[in-house]
């Protein structure tokens, strides 16, 4: 190659421009090419997390997909802006509520599976984006999550009270409690607050109301969805005619 003056202004600007264009093109092409795979992975991971809350952990990819499709359906209540999952485990109905909150360094989230009584926890799964490994990161472990099974989130009067997450050995008045992670007080409190505030929205919408009322409301929600679908079907032909 002929000796070029690599220190001239023109060469420097041209070099920077070409480099940036090449890198930008490369990244754009790769990002677009990989996007469907990444989205499929994220969707599959969500399904695995939901299955983990049903105590079906460490399943392979194909098995997870199949089990999820067999057992779980998503239910949306558009009127109240909430959605949850319903699972059918050998004839037993489970409700799975998604929860979201804040840990120490970043977001935390999870899924709480409830028995058909909408009170007793069947299983729980929590995950985090950037909690400290070995401290707050422990909320992702089965050891922490398995404590939640069998706890109740309603008090004796059927009011939603959530769970207390306390130092090992302590107990709370009028509330079920699980052991916090030592050394990770803020993340543990974050899980407690997350469960309280996320599920409070369901409580406010009457999700935990008297069993019969709840069923009626649920029926109304389902009907509301159907009515909307019908309306849309009716509207479309008119539009095409115009």
């Amino acid at each position, binding site marked *: 190659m002929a000796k070029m003056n690599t*220190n001239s202004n023109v060469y420097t600007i041209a070099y*920077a421009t070409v480099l940036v264009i090449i890198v930008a093109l490369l990244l754009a092409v790769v990002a677009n090419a990989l996007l469907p795979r990444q989205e499929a992975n994220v969707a599959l*991971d969500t399904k695995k997390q939901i299955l983990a809350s049903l105590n079906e952990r460490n399943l392979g990819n194909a098995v997870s997909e199949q089990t999820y499709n067999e057992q779980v359906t998503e239910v949306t209540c558009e009127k109240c802006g909430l959605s949850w999952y319903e699972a059918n485990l050998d004839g037993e109905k489970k409700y799975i509520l998604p929860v979201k909150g804040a840990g120490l360094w970043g977001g935390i989230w999870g899924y709480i599976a409830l028995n058909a009584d909408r009170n007793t926890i069947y299983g729980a799964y929590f995950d985090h984006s950037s909690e400290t490994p070995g401290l707050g990161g422990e909320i992702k472990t089965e050891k922490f999550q398995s404590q939640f099974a069998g706890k109740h989130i309603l008090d004796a009067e059927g009011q939603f009270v959530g769970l207390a997450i306390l130092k090992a050995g302590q107990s709370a008045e009028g509330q079920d409690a699980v052991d916090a992670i030592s050394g990770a007080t803020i993340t543990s409190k974050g899980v407690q607050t997350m469960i309280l505030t996320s599920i409070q929205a369901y409580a406010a919408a009457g999700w935990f109301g008297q069993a019969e009322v709840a069923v009626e409301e649920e029926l109304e929600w389902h009907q509301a969805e159907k009515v909307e679908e019908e309306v849309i079907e009716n509207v479309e032909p008119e539009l095409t005619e115009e």
Partner: protein
Amino acid sequence: MALSEKTREAFLGPLNKNNPVVVQVLGICSALAVTVQLKPALVMGIAVTIIVALANVVISALRNTIPSRIRIIVQLVVVAALVTLVSAFLKAFVYDVSVALSVYIGLIITNCILMGRLEAYAMSNGPWDSLLDGLGNGFGYMWVLAVVAFVRELFGSGSLMGLRIIPESWYVANGGFYENCGMMVMPAMALILVACVIWVHRSLNKEDK
């Protein structure tokens, strides 16, 4: 394949006499962040090794064309692009690993070892030597992280690679006599352990002074 003295030194030097962490004291920031447990430390070590080796090769191949006034920016662009690519590929093909790495993969861009090797080695050596230099520095970084993480996880959590080593029944909470050392999971302890590794390493290599 016979390697020349210089090539061998490019690979073996950073493992011991010219270690990026214990001798040059680079990359300390990430050594503090990822060494609470052994597994993230090893994964971080592997990721850094791959990226420093690739960046070294790319910069070494381009070294005669890079305008010297913007060379740091060019190096940064190459490193940032590689990190973004590796991150995208991990997310698409090995999602579990990408979840395990979470924030650390982004932290690689700020790892001083990368810029240090690009500026000090790849800018003035051929691609083959630069590749070995990158691998050597990556492994040199990894073993120090592994030693620190081994001690911190064993004494801080009583486990290794997430597997329990110290039996549950030993713990005070279960009526035993043992308690985890809370200091070990604090970042300050990583600094003290890195210092201990440096101390031992210097004592062993005293004749070099």
